[in-house]
């Protein structure tokens, strides 16, 4: 009787461990998809380059050759940026859904995208540089980053005044979104044709202006933020149980929400300022990760990053190949492919989960 009891006990723990192993396998699966599409991204492009030339460009590194330039200064940053921005958006989307307790939330829900767009437009239309004296390629990213930050501050201000509940945040986010969207529309109205075209193109979202330096910045921010979030992963998981329950487990929900909000804002702002508005990755990646891995944030954080990277890498590949010889703006691809996927999620949605 007692041996039966101990065998039973061992079975429960092993079943739990199996649950964990299953999740680790999914993480590896996402990783493989990322590697697969990244390889495709380096190999394919408007110019036809042989595998041998690609390998020598990557590992022998002599930049006096046009092929090397294409590989090292176009394709490689493009590929890496797709991975990093996809990951950043995936993680930002996950945490936005968590703190707003809403499955429809994305990194852009609280108006950061509107602020970023307005910042970029300021540069294109008026030539207004918030920090003057910097190289031209950093004007737009810096403007949009600073405006995103301003948006974040506005939301914080609203939150401090009325309490940091999900309801207040959403309402504040809507108001701030509308504010900057109308200001953006005003700028678009006043813009010259070239400026207007530049703004519209920026808003599409595009990886074409990626460089290794910009990728490094996104990488460091993503690393920093994900490590900090992992440290608090259990408290964030508890948030999913509801306000009262989380409090009863000793979690200071307001403090955690503020902290996560700041991290999400920085992450989104950095991702958006270099590549513009790439939609749907932040909405869809967390949902896929959650269906495969449950609610445990230790896995969800990593899973959302990798899922986002996989989606955006795949999207990057599609936008290179869909029109031969040209590169389609990636934001359009993610939106077009994201919509039916999202509808599918909505249709099969299980009750009682949110």
């Amino acid at each position, binding site marked *: 009787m007692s041996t039966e009891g101990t065998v039973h*006990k061992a079975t429960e723990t092993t079943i739990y461990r199996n649950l964990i192993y299953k999740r680790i396998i999914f993480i590896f699966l996402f990783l493989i998809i990322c590697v697969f599409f990244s390889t495709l991204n380096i190999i394919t492009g408007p110019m036809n380059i042989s595998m041998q030339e690609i390998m020598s460009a990557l590992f022998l590194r002599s930049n006096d050759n046009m092929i090397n330039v294409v590989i090292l200064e176009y394709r490689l940053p493009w590929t890496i940026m797709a991975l990093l921005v996809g990951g950043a958006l995936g993680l930002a989307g996950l945490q936005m859904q968590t703190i707003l307790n809403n499955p429809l939330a994305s990194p852009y829900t609280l108006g950061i995208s509107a602020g970023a767009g307005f910042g970029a437009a300021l540069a294109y239309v008026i030539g207004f540089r918030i920090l003057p004296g910097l190289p031209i390629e950093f004007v737009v990213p810096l403007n949009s980053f600073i405006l995103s930050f301003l948006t974040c501050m506005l939301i914080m201000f609203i939150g401090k005044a009325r309490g940091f509940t999900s309801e207040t945040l959403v309402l504040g986010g809507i108001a701030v979104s509308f504010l900057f969207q109308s200001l953006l529309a005003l700028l678009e109205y006043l813009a010259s044709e070239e400026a207007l075209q530049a703004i519209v193109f920026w808003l599409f979202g595009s990886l074409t202006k990626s460089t290794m330096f910009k990728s490094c910045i996104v990488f460091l921010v993503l690393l920093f933020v994900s490590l900090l979030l992992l440290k608090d992963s259990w408290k964030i998981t508890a948030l999913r149980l509801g306000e009262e329950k989380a409090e009863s487990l000793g979690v200071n929900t307001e403090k955690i929400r503020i902290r996560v909000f700041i991290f999400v804002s920085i992450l989104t702002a950095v991702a958006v300022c270099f590549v513009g508005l790439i939609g749907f990755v932040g909405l869809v990646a967390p949902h896929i990760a*959650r269906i495969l891995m*449950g609610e445990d944030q230790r896995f969800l954080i990593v899973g959302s990053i990798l899922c986002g990277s996989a989606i955006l890498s795949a999207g990057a590949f599609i936008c290179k190949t869909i029109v031969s010889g040209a590169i389609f703006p990636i934001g359009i691809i993610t939106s077009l492919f994201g919509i039916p996927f999202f509808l599918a999620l909505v249709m099969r949605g299980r009750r009682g989960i949110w």
Partner: protein
Amino acid sequence: MVKVSLAGVGFQYGSHKVLENISFDAFPGEVTTIIGPNGAGKSTLLKLISGILKPTKGRICLDNKDTIYMSREEIVKIVSYLPQENTIPGILTVYETLLLGRIPYLSLRIKEEDLKAVENVLEDLGLKSFALRYAHQLSGGERQMILIAQALVREPKVLLLDEPVSNLDIRHQLKVLNMIRKITFEKKMTTIIVIHDLNMALRYSENIIILNGGRIVGKGKPRSILTEDLLAYTYGVDVKIYETDGFLNVIPIRPK
């Protein structure tokens, strides 16, 4: 073993007084129930003891240590509070839901003792077959059992339960309350239960506290304190108390 003592505790939202001059002791190994009409301040009282709210007046002591000097982390390791809400959102297995009850102790890698604690609670409550079911697929009664298990999994010294059996059928009500009384006695926990069902309160508590309009109108042993007059005064309902098979029963007759 942790004694819970309240001395002159008061709580107000702005100028609205919710609780006034609350003083009582709850002892380890005993179940103390709090009864009273809706809006009497019972849930607020539990939130004060659990540290979620801080009293505006008076002192709450856990083993003679004033909670005002204790951090949330310290309190939550001693006190386990189960609120009234009976939902478990998200895609969580029962096992993971219970694991979350150990949040004060969890680090990035789950330790053997955390897993053991979950196992023990599943065993004690007879819930082993539920371990890998998804929480959102459970019935209301099953969910309530899981939430109680979650409150117990971090081996608290003080257990605060807000309406723990309101969702359960009579058989499960008896099972759960029997189990709570047994664990309270065996582990010398200090258990405080807010409950609407007067008969259950009479049956399962060593001490009973009657709250009305934010004040204590009676406290002591159930049999001596609970009189028909007191209940009529508190609830505004004429009642009769009968004894059947050694159990006291409160029968509401008519509203006053």
